[in-house]
């Protein structure tokens, strides 16, 4: 139970971190805008909430002496994933601060870099916040105002990481990864509709055809049997 909850929380944090990275990539480029800055702020706050929740849950579990050895190893593995995720989040936040300072939006003399991106990041933000559509309600100078908050939040995250290191004694290098190299390939094949190249698309199609034919044969066989039985019944009676 606890394991599943921890995993779910961790997955959520992972998702938000990935989305945050996507958004930080677009700062300073042509798709940068006030909306982007607002999205960054909201995503970041959500990430922090999730981080705190994760930390609380994991620290209570790790401090629990009654946990079995395999479970403890599993929780340590989750802990390592959590701390790495937090490191990446902190780095991205620092970079966002630096880039935010370098590329203020309302200064006419400072121009954005022509990166060739035209679309917005609202889809990414919606994914991060787990909502359908993003609502934008911030003021028009959020890019400057937000930087102070960002600094404070970076300090908070830094303190949290320091506390974590001091309270929980999990050596990172003792954790063994569960996934082998190349594991990302196996799961995606099963997940999406995208198949392995053009050839396998046809193969898939042919497989589908075969299964359809098989189903058709079985159905017709059942039908014939039913008809024969009905005729027998009629004849006998």
């Amino acid at each position: 139970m606890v394991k599943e909850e921890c995993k779910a929380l961790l997955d959520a944090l992972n998702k938000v971190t990935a989305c945050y990275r996507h958004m930080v990539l677009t700062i300073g480029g042509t798709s940068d805008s006030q909306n982007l800055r607002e999205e960054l702020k909201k995503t970041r706050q959500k990430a922090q909430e999730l981080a705190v929740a994760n930390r609380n849950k994991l620290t209570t579990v790790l401090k629990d002496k009654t946990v079995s050895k395999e479970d403890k190893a599993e929780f340590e593995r989750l802990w390592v994933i959590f701390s790495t995720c937090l490191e990446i989040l902190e780095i991205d936040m620092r970079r966002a601060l630096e880039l935010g300072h370098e590329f203020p939006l309302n200064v006419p003399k400072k121009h954005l870099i022509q990166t060739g991106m035209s679309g917005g990041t609202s889809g990414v933000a919606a994914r991060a916040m787990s909502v359908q559509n993003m609502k934008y309600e911030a003021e028009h100078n959020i890019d400057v105002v937000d930087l102070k908050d960002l600094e404070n939040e970076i300090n908070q995250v830094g303190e949290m990481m320091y506390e974590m290191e001091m309270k929980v004694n999990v050596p990172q290098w003792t954790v063994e990864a569960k996934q082998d190299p190349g594991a990302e390939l196996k799961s995606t094949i099963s997940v999406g509709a995208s198949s392995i190249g053009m050839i396998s698309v046809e193969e898939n199609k042919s497989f589908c055809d075969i299964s359809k034919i098989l189903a058709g044969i079985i159905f017709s066989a059942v039908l014939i049997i039913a008809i024969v039985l009905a005729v027998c019944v009629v004849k006998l009676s």
Partner: protein
Amino acid sequence: MTVTRLDQGQRHRPRMAFLKKIEVLVMEMQNTDTGIKTQTQRVMITTIPHAVAARLQEGVCALGGLQSTVRGNDILQWILQRLQITEEEALHLGDLFVKYGYIYPLQEPKNLTLKTDGSLYRFQTPYFWPAQSWPADDTDYAIYLAKKNIRRKGILEEYEKEHYNMLNQKINYKWDFVIMQAKEQYKAGKERKKADRYALDCQERAYWLVNRTPPGMLDVLEYGIDRVTDPNENKIMYYQQAIMKSRVKSSVSLGGLVKYSEQFLSNDPILSGCLPSNPWITDDPEFWDLNAKLVEIPTRMRVERWAFNFSELIRDPKGRQNFQLFLKKEFSGENLSFWEACEDLKYGDQSKVKEKAEEIYNSTFPFGRRHLRSSPSPVILRQQEEEAKAKEAATTVDITQVMSKLDRRSQLKKEPPK
């Protein structure tokens, strides 16, 4: 417990300080009035080979994408006009922009050079600019390779495969995170417009081409050894110390140089000619024979040189030999032996330092010599002998010898008057 990375970031590498200057120029290029004119180009995916297999199956290619690009020639012209330098310099500078990853080529992604023939380039997003304080992280590279693996269904370049396996071993404890994050980033990327996704792929690829160069390509971000202390920090203290350093007036230092030159001019074989002849010209090695290290009779010029200063005497092996003889006559030879032993200690074998030091100490200093009963050096012995002889000669007077000497003298005196 985690081990926080020792922050030997690029800010400690002052050789990377020039990156800030490039950034200023790149930002100026973006100015709509005075910057470079960008073209909106329909990016035809089919002309870019890598995308064909990966993209076509998704059913839609990014043909509809209008993305701003720059021509190589325009970059060159802008640099020429803005900085007022020669074309060669401008070409080199523009090439550096591409090599450091501020601008990346579209048509030949792996060829990071500036071509002025109308090739298309695009600006890199600021997150991927090389920066002094943000080194390209191994974890990020692992995530990128995993993403590429997903996107290309396992088709990676050879060097990338090697890196992948190496990273898997190196950061194995993070590997679960790497895979999770790669999948999430891939999925999050799908939320963007197709054209933007393609641009993002190009950007990432360009970034990692610069930061993890494939074999055979020049690694421009090579900066030498990592420093632990930051010369950029504490600038005030650094400059204060620099001001406090004692300086010599140039008149004084130049005067010293002139004096040195005047003194050594006559001795210099190149400036004042050498007798009998310059061996390099006449192929006659007599000059070298006459001036061999420990030749029997040193040349006059050489001996004059010893008179200039003490270090000249010591440097010349023949001079040192003569000096040693002189010291022995004055019963002070052990001083030079001590000095030579110290030089041997300085420049000699490190493993024997302790033994040598003890030997020098015991043989030179007379502390408790009587107690040690170690035999003194032969010079001391001889000195003691001479002293003993002189003492004896002073105390025992042989009367007969003295009288005979006096007699002989008086006899000599007597004879002339005759």
